[in-house]
């Protein structure tokens, strides 16, 4: 009975039924119209923003060149030396256990360990260690033997040999190449010795501690023909390459000012490192530590916190400004500045240090018509970013890259008037691994991009730049065709001279000039 009724009703749909049944369809059309409109506007915006811009984006990592196992000696195996070893694939088994333990409560460390274990094997062997502090040497030996990336009790391979002097390490027939991660005042003497003996060199930044030795190392490296890489791993930062190509295409217009900074606010960042309890005159070869520096009686403070004293360090200019300089040298081919003025002081860390904890430097490039401004403090974390200011837009750089339009831009005048772009809002973004520069259109995207959260995440997917930097050096060694890596000795020379000009300007309270013809600081 009920069924009959149903069929009956079904067969006789009234006009009312049909209207009420289909009346919502036009609403779908209306929403669809809205969608298509927004889509076509977004497409127009995108095409007009990106039409004449062809950013160069590296795709993938060049293949590792096959060859014999490279035998590496580590000279200076403290904090940075240990990190470089990790980037090569060697970590002390203690550390592996530590990551595992921390990973139980914090997944970040679990991922960290996984990423380390997944890091490409570079086909290298640590055959030699040299450190003036026994504890550092012992830890590095254990790390060097940990070929299989195990924790304590796991399978280990042959341990590297310890040498008490760098000369002996360099002389060793078991060493093809050296990594120098000593205090600054030792970089050049060791690098020269290595290059003269035909050992390839990866040297931590800055290149040199004094002006005079900068010329010498350049000559020796060039004559020896060894593969030389300075440790500015920022060379591997993808966004810098993209920035370079965007600037070449005049996306931001005439550059007049570049601002870079260092902002740190913790003892570690201010080089007040922990003093190891094992350290004493018996476990540290103090005389060798002093090297070419003026004699000073044994001091644990000076040994562990050497960056605080000019005798062993190059201060903010050599230690931290050089990172910024090298990034910009890579992007803009800066070269050595025409002149530098500097000011600052020891304003926060009244701990007996001689290097300033606040430093401001202005580097002039009259040929290029712009100034590079560096400003640093070790007592505030208010980060001011890395900004290249052009007439049409400014480019902000970190791991990601953002281009923001200037309201008075000539190039984007029409687009500003048409409302296609908004002043001070990002119009392009680039994030590593994306493989494309995006024109940013939606407000949400602009918001997130402006705060650097669009795709950046410590998910560890990004490969360690230090690993890539070492890899580039190793590839050049294996290629053996005379090719030098990206941060070669010429780039290193420019980095060192720019930093020295700043240091001299600060110390002598005067403006330093670069005589490009004679290649001297005056």
């Amino acid at each position: 009975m009920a069924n009959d009724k149903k069929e009956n009703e079904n067969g006789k749909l009234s006009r009312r039924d049909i209207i009420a049944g289909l009346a919502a369809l036009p609403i779908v059309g209306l929403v669809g119209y809205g969608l298509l409109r927004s889509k076509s506007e977004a497409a127009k915006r995108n095409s007009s923003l990106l039409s004449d811009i062809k950013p160069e984006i590296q795709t993938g990592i060049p293949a590792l060149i096959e060859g014999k196992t490279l035998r590496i000696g580590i000279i200076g195996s403290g904090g940075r030396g240990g990190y470089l070893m990790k980037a090569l694939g060697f970590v002390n088994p203690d550390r592996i256990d530590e990551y595992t333990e921390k990973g139980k409560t914090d997944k970040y460390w679990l991922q960290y360990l996984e990423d380390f274990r997944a890091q490409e094997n570079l086909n290298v062997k640590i055959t030699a260690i040299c450190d003036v502090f026994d504890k550092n040497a012992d830890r590095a030996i254990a790390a060097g033997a940990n070929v299989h990336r195990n924790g304590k009790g796991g399978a280990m391979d042959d341990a590297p040999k310890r040498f008490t002097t760098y000369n002996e390490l360099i002389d060793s027939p078991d060493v093809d190449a050296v990594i120098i991660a000593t205090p600054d005042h030792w970089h050049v003497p060791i690098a020269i010795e290595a290059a003269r003996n035909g050992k390839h060199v990866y040297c931590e930044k800055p290149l040199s501690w004094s002006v005079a030795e900068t010329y010498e190392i350049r000559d020796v490296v060039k004559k020896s023909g060894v593969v030389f890489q300075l440790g500015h791993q920022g060379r591997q930062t993808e966004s810098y390459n993209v920035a370079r190509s965007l600037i070449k295409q005049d996306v931001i217009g005439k550059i007049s000012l570049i601002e870079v900074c260092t902002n740190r606010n913790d003892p570690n960042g201010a080089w007040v490192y922990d003093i190891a309890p094992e350290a004493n005159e018996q476990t540290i070869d103090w005389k060798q530590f002093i090297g070419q520096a003026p004699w000073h009686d044994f001091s644990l403070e000076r040994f562990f916190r050497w960056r605080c004293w000019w005798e062993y360090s190059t201060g903010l200019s050599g230690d931290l400004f050089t990172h910024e300089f090298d990034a910009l040298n890579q992007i803009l081919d800066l070269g050595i500045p025409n002149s530098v003025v500097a000011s600052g002081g020891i304003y926060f860390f009244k701990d007996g240090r001689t290097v300033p904890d606040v430093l401001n430097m202005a580097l002039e490039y009259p040929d290029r018509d712009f100034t590079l401004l560096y400003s640093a403090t070790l007592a505030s974390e208010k980060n001011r970013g890395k900004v290249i200011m052009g007439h049409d837009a400014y480019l902000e750089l970190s791991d990601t890259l953002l281009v923001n339009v200037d309201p008075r831009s000539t190039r984007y005048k029409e687009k500003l008037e048409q409302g296609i772009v908004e002043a001070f809002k990002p119009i392009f973004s680039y994030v590593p691994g994306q493989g494309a520069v995006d024109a940013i259109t939606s407000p949400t995207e602009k918001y997130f991009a402006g705060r650097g959260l669009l795709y950046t995440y410590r998910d560890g997917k990004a490969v360690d730049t230090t690993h890539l930097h070492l890899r580039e050096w190793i590839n050049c060694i294996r290629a053996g065709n005379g090719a030098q890596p990206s941060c070669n000795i010429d780039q290193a020379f420019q980095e060192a001279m720019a930093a020295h000009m700043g240091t001299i300007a600060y110390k002598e309270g005067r403006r330093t000039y670069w005589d490009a013809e004679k290649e001297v600081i005056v």
Partner: protein
Amino acid sequence: MRYSKTQSFALVILRISIGWHFLYEGGVKVLNPHWTSKSYLLDSGGFLKGFFEQIAGNQTVLTFSDYANAYGLTLIGLSLVIGVFTRYASIAGMVLLLLYYLSHPAFPGIEYLFPSDGSYFIINKTLVELFSLMVIYAFPTSNIFGLQRLLKSDKSFLE
């Protein structure tokens, strides 16, 4: 159940409005090949923060979540607007909204990167939309105004 004209009108308007919102949000995502929920997920807060961040960190899961979101929103929206399978759509819509809420709960003390458009304490617009869908679920109207009216014959409640 019989509704008065005013009741029917109010319920249908509510259903279509929510549908419109879902359909547009979904459509925008479907039509934008670069859209991803990653930044939203990374901005998560509350007790499930870790879970949502994990989704963002795993490319396979993230891709699935992006598709599920974009097409889920679109289909739910379409269904609510044209008035077919609205009870299923209401349930699916509530699940999605619950996930959105749990990733960005309006609990005191949690700050998000993306600014909110108002001031909320526990109840926010996401939750209100979720409860509105509960109303849509409890008081179906697609037999009054919607495709269902043509498909289903049982219109006894209309009489």
